[in-house]
């Protein structure tokens, strides 16, 4: 328990299956952590009834994942719960890296303005989960069952049958689709004996949350070999409620139980913060970490997401943030498949896209780990050489790796993309998350307010006539038209490019069109509207055969 937070207790209810027949479910999500909740909210918002099963009855115990990326906040905005997370969280974008007591270099993760959300917010995981639970409870299509533990899973060609244990006994439950978000130790992955390949790192870290009134700016600060903790690294983050996260590298030989004791922690903190600092310990944990993933995230009617599917080191905040992107990627695809509007093959692209993203996260996380915890004398020598050079030479600052912080995956190799036929400047290549920008319009002051949900054709100027716009809206997989500038009728939304940044970020000229997926990734673009090309790109992005 902590002094600054009171854990909610969500009521267990006796399930009706114990007293009567068990109705088959469409989609069951296992795990009411950040990823399971995000997936369930996304599905429910799309009209897919979802049952969430969780073996506990509260939110995350301890602050755990605390750094939530801009992309995570944008996804939460789409899921209707961005504001409580962004509002409570401490925004930051500057990181400072020290060697010894000297600043080696600093970075700014979002140097430009014109984005709704900051590069990161820090927020205790329990607040994050509570915001998602509150949103989930407002959705009639979503039911959460607390203290319902899945003890057995029998996969079948058309779904799965579960056994669920409760305080009142066990019951059977059949479903068409099972979304597995039961965390790093994934009991379901283990029950099914599925592979989980990778590396375990031989190092231990102590994380301590302390309550302390201090006016340090909200920046990420990282020390290599500081005088207060020689030969190891230390990371410091600010959280809300005057809570600070300190992360001490301990080495492999540290005794995890002993290191968790206050009498061991206090001298470390005093050495760091000075003898006059006033603080109280909120929570402490000693962890090791692993970099590994399942070979495939889809196993027939079972789909794995988040830590259950992939694990990275914490350097770079790529755990929870990548899991939220998994949910973002899965929601629209599964809802189209459940509705019979796309073939099951669309879910293989969840696997392809998120496995590629997981590999990118694993690569970055492993590289950071090798820099922070060198595994050989020569590796340590090169690390120290980089840090020494970084003080004088700009090139070496690019080599300093205290964690490459989470950025949204660019799905450049996705089979859902239509390759460019014209040339474009800027970053918005097919596969990229659509960049935000300030706009004027009826649905809000940010471009991302208008993208996502369904497919959107973002058009610069009046190049799409009314009949074409209505045809797109009426297609089997509908596509809304959002028009930048000009006049329009009821068949489209018209927005103003408030600061010219939409045109700048999308290289938009009169006639330019972008096809944006329901998860806000760009999947095709053209220099002029062509109804047949848009229909073909929509078919491709949903794995449907092209129209004849």
């Amino acid at each position, binding site marked *: 328990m902590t002094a600054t937070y009171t854990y909610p207790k969500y009521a267990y209810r006796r399930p009706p299956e114990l007293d009567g027949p068990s109705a088959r479910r469409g989609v069951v999500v296992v795990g009411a952590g950040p990823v399971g909740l995000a997936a369930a909210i996304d599905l429910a918002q799309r009209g897919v009834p979802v049952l969430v099963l969780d073996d506990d009855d509260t939110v995350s115990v301890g602050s755990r994942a605390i750094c939530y990326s801009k992309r995570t906040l944008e996804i939460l905005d789409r899921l209707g719960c961005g504001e409580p997370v962004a509002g409570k969280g401490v925004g930051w974008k500057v990181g400072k890296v020290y060697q010894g007591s000297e600043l080696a270099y600093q970075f700014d993760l979002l140097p430009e303005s014109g984005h709704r959300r900051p590069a990161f917010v820090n927020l205790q995981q329990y607040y994050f989960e509570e915001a998602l639970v509150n949103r989930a409870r407002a959705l009639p299509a979503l039911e959460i069952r607390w203290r319902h533990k899945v003890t057995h899973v029998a996969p079948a060609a058309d779904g799965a049958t579960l056994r669920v244990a409760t305080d009142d006994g066990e019951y059977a439950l059949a479903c068409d689709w099972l979304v597995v978000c039961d965390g790093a130790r994934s009991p379901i992955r283990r029950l099914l004996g599925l592979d989980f390949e990778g590396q375990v790192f031989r190092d231990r870290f102590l994380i301590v949350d302390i309550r302390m009134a201090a006016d340090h700016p909200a920046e990420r600060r990282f020390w290599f070999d500081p005088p207060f903790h020689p030969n190891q690294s230390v990371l410091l983050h600010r959280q809300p409620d005057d809570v600070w996260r300190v992360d001490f590298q301990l080495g492999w030989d540290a005794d995890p139980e002993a290191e968790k004791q206050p009498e061991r922690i206090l001298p470390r903190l005093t050495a760091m913060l000075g003898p006059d600092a006033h603080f109280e310990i909120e929570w402490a944990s000693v962890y090791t970490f692993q970099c590994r993933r399942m070979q495939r995230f889809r196993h027939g009617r079972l789909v794995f997401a988040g830590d259950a599917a992939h694990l990275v080191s914490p350097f770079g905040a790529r755990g929870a943030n990548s899991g939220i992107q998994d949910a973002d990627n899965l929601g629209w695809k599964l809802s189209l498949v459940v509705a019979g509007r796309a073939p099951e093959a669309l879910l293989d692209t969840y696997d392809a896209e998120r496995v590629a993203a997981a590999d990118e996260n694993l690569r970055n996380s492993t590289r950071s780990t090798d820099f922070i915890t060198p595994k050989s004398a020569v590796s340590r020598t*090169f690390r120290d*050489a980089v840090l020494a*050079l970084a003080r004088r030479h700009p090139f*070496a600052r690019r080599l300093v790796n205290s964690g490459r912080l989470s950025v949204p995956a660019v799905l450049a190799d996705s089979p859902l993309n239509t390759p460019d036929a014209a040339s474009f400047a800027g970053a918005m290549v097919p596969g990229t998350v659509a960049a935000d920008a300030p706009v004027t319009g009826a649905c809000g002051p940010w471009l991302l307010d208008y993208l996502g949900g369904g497919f959107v054709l973002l058009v610069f100027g009046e190049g799409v006539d009314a009949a074409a716009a209505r045809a797109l809206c009426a297609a089997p997989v509908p596509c809304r038209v959002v028009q930048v500038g000009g006049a329009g009728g009821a068949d489209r939304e018209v927005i103003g490019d408030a600061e010219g940044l939409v045109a700048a970020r999308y290289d938009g000229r009169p006639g330019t069109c972008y096809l944006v997926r329901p998860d806000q990734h760009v999947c095709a673009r053209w220099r002029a509207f062509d109804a047949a090309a848009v229909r073909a790109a929509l078919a491709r992005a949903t794995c449907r055969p092209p129209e004849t």
Partner: protein
Amino acid sequence: MATLVTDPNIAAPDDFYEALIEAHRGLTDAQSALVNAKLVLLLANHIGDAGVLQAALAAAREDVASA
């Protein structure tokens, strides 16, 4: 694309070699290792070309078997 130059390219090779050894005068083995690492990084950045760097890494490792 640039390739790794392995033909003579230093005008006064003996001068360079002397300077290289001189750069390590008075250093412990650990300090020398650090100086060498810094030198590698400075030169690598100067070269920049990924293909040349890859070829240099391969040439340096040639005939050195894993222990």
